């Protein structure tokens, strides 16, 4: 089974974790606050 060949294990883990950490950083810093701001704006427009 080719998935059990250990030569690229470290490479695979490194890519997966680095990429996931980049995503967590970008989502938490830029994209998710944008959603929160948008929903808050809509709520203020409808309530006020």
């Amino acid at each position, binding site marked *: 089974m080719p*998935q059990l060949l250990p030569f690229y294990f470290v*490479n695979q883990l490194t*890519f*997966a974790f680095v990429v*996931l950490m980049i*995503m967590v950083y*970008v989502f938490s810093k830029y994209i998710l606050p944008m959603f929160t701001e948008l929903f808050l704006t809509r709520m203020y427009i409808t309530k006020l």
Partner: protein
Amino acid sequence: MSFLLHSPLEQFEVSSLVNLQLPVLGYTNISLTNLGLYTIIAVYLSLAFHFVASNNKSVIPSRWSISLESSFASVHSLVKAQIGAANEVYLPFIYSLFFFILFANLSGNVPYGFTVTTSIIVALGLSVTIFLGVTILSLSLHKLHFFSFFVPTGAPTALIPLLVPIEIISYLARAVSLGVRLFANMVAGHTLLKILSGFLAPMFTSGIIAAVVTLLPFTIFVALIGLEIAVSFIQAYVFCILTASYLKDAIDLH
């Protein structure tokens, strides 16, 4: 006929695209593999989807931003329902995990694409890391009281010596089951598609009558591709909801 001799598992081989070999620290091999390329593609697609569909933060949504906002609302409600509104600090992690797994699965459904989550080390690496992180979080929050998690509430005292080892084993099994569930679903689906396409391709090319007759099994094959796309969404969702559930168990201990 020659491709029938190839194994349906060949599609999961990790191969190097760009290689840098340095005779330092013994022997250093830094390579961009097909798996590395597809992780970059997955993160590029998920971030690009968010930037393109954001509709310039306009209050009035476009069709694309409606899909984005509904996916945010789904993951947000998942986190609030499982972990609680006081623990929304875990939303970025669950959200990133969902989109990474989703786009990794979907990019593998493109013909000749590589599915990152068919790598056992990626799937198990994610699940073991999540398991260790959740256990460390629970130990830091509850200290020794964490071990009360293995004693089910309302259990008769005489049965506790039997129940505690079973609870410990089922807790330890979470580390493996979370990753293997994702891995096995993806590998099984892609292996099936490879085997069926290995039969359909020569049938299509062996004459006009055979090609017309092959249309019926081909419709079943197309339905299976649709099933694979659905499984991609479902497996990303199941992975995230179980991660949120394990976080809830770690924070609340019940």
